């Protein structure tokens, strides 16, 4: 019998420019501890670190210099001898670890589980590995093309099916929103940094000087990261806080990581085109079948329809696919949805309200959990100047790897208590 699960604590390390100036003095152990104790401090009625029964963390994965040891992390948190699982699942890792932390409470095995997504973004080896297509067949089947080249491939299909102008106008809109949200989030990496572009100027520049247009588009911010929540059974939630947030549905799905697989995957029971509602002649590298599968399953478990979703917190820049997988806009309708302002704070679906990966800080291993923490803040009505007017149901999505635009995906649906 599955127990209902609630979130009673949430928190993250400080990503603000002022905090990051001191980053060199901090190891990843410090940052995990900073997030862990921020989470504990947020529990309104208090929770002793000794009460934590189990810990689930994750980081991006691949090469590790010093990460990778579950015991190191428990020790860094000062929580020896609590049990701990360390998961690696690339950019959706903190979604996968949340999924497992949820299951530990829902199953009845533990009553207080600490979940933290983290990443040491500036670790050179880890960063080098991230630039490979992290292939399931190793690097030589990618001929020197790496993770950044997926952007080239995505652009090709975006221009083809969304139109070049609409794609780039959606990009500009999204960048401006990134700064808008980040400037209202004191923990965001771009907090206090003015947006360097204006939409009208950029769109006229696109018509006259495309090279200059591209030069002016600000790139997203890359940072370290650590953030997470405390999960307890719903029946215990009021012992810790008067404003718990309930987990209504979680799902995690995987598909092959080889970039070309969606065009040929001869498994009879697996129909990529129908899963993603895509005509067969419109293969689209911007689409992640794993994302569609995890989103559909999480929404089904939560018994919600697209109309029920009040805001979404997928902390990634390629946002068309998230919108389309939720069903809030038609397939290949993501660009129009953004251009029309529907992802702004007063739009149909405020989106990545903490600033997104580009504005809060892209840390891979804590991307998903950064979105999760923002979802909890929004549901509790504590988001201040970036508070969404309607905040009853939030969807958090994430993808990792390649295989289309994401071979693995985790999604969760949260509801206000």
């Amino acid at each position, binding site marked *: 019998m599955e127990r209902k699960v609630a979130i009673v604590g949430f928190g993250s390390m400080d990503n603000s420019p002022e905090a990051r100036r001191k980053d060199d003095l901090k190891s990843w152990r410090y940052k995990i501890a900073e997030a862990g104790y921020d989470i504990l401090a947020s529990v309104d009625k208090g929770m002793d670190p000794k009460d934590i029964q189990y810990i689930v963390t994750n980081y991006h994965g691949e090469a590790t210099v010093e990460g990778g040891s579950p015991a190191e992390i428990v020790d860094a948190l000062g929580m020896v001898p609590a049990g701990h699982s360390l998961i690696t699942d690339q950019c959706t890792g903190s979604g996968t670890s949340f999924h497992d932390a949820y299951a530990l409470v829902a199953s009845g095995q533990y009553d207080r589980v600490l979940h933290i997504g983290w990443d040491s973004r500036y670790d050179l080896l880890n960063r080098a590995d991230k630039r490979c297509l992290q292939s399931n067949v190793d690097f030589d089947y990618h001929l020197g093309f790496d993770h950044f080249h997926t952007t*080239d491939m995505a652009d090709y299909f975006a221009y083809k099916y969304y139109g070049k102008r609409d794609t780039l106008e959606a990009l500009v809109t999204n960048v401006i929103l990134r700064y808008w949200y980040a400037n209202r989030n004191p923990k965001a990496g771009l907090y206090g940094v003015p947006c360097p572009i204006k939409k009208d100027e950029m769109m006229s520049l696109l018509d006259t000087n495309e090279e200059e247009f591209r030069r002016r588009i600000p790139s997203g911010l890359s940072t370290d990261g650590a953030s997470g929540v405390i999960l307890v059974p719903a029946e215990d939630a009021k012992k810790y806080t008067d404003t718990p947030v309930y987990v209504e549905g979680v799902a995690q799905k995987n598909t092959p990581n080889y970039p070309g697989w969606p065009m*040929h995957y001869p498994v009879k029971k697996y129909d990529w085109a129908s899963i993603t509602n895509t005509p067969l002649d419109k293969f689209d590298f911007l689409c992640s079948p794993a994302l569609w599968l995890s989103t559909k399953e999480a929404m089904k478990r939560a018994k919600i329809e697209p109309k029920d979703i009040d805001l979404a917190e997928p902390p990634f820049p390629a946002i068309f696919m998230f919108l389309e997988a939720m069903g809030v806009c038609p397939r290949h309708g993501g660009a129009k949805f953004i251009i029309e302002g529907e992802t702004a704070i007063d739009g149909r679906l405020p989106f990545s309200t903490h600033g997104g990966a580009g504005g809060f800080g892209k840390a891979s291993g804590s991307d998903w959990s950064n979105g999760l923490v923002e979802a909890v803040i929004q549901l509790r009505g504590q988001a201040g100047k970036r508070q969404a007017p309607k905040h009853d149901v939030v969807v958090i999505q994430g993808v990792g790897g390649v295989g289309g635009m994401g071979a693995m995906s985790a999604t969760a649906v949260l509801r206000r208590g």
Partner: protein
Amino acid sequence: MHSFFPEPAYQIAVYREPVYWRERKGRYRLVGSKCKNCKELWWPRRISGVCPNCHSREFEEYEFSHEGEIFAFMRDAVPEPLMGMHVYGRDRRIIAAVKLKEGVCIMPTEIVDCKLEELKEGMKVRLVVRKLRRANNGNWLYGYMWTPIKE
């Protein structure tokens, strides 16, 4: 960098010579896997030896067609390769997806001996093998690439 090799010979942990050696048939001749039970074809080869379709563990080698057609193509817009990821003699390569008659899609791969402007979706191409980079031990590594078939 060793003075014998003008190209960067240092590389990062993920590039392991045994992997190149193990995958030489795939990289030089497009040899993938054919499931002996359900007859499905797989590219790249099923290294784990499990067929996702019927879960059989019995495979034989299958050499894929050396001709195909361009499904998608684009200019490599990443300006600087990361240390150790240089590809010999080329930058701003043409990235492509090539569909073979067996239905398999090779992606990412590269189109060579041709300008971007000359390419069209559906254009027929044939397999060529070209230098990719040096391994840590100085060996040349080659890769499968494609060039348009002249009518």
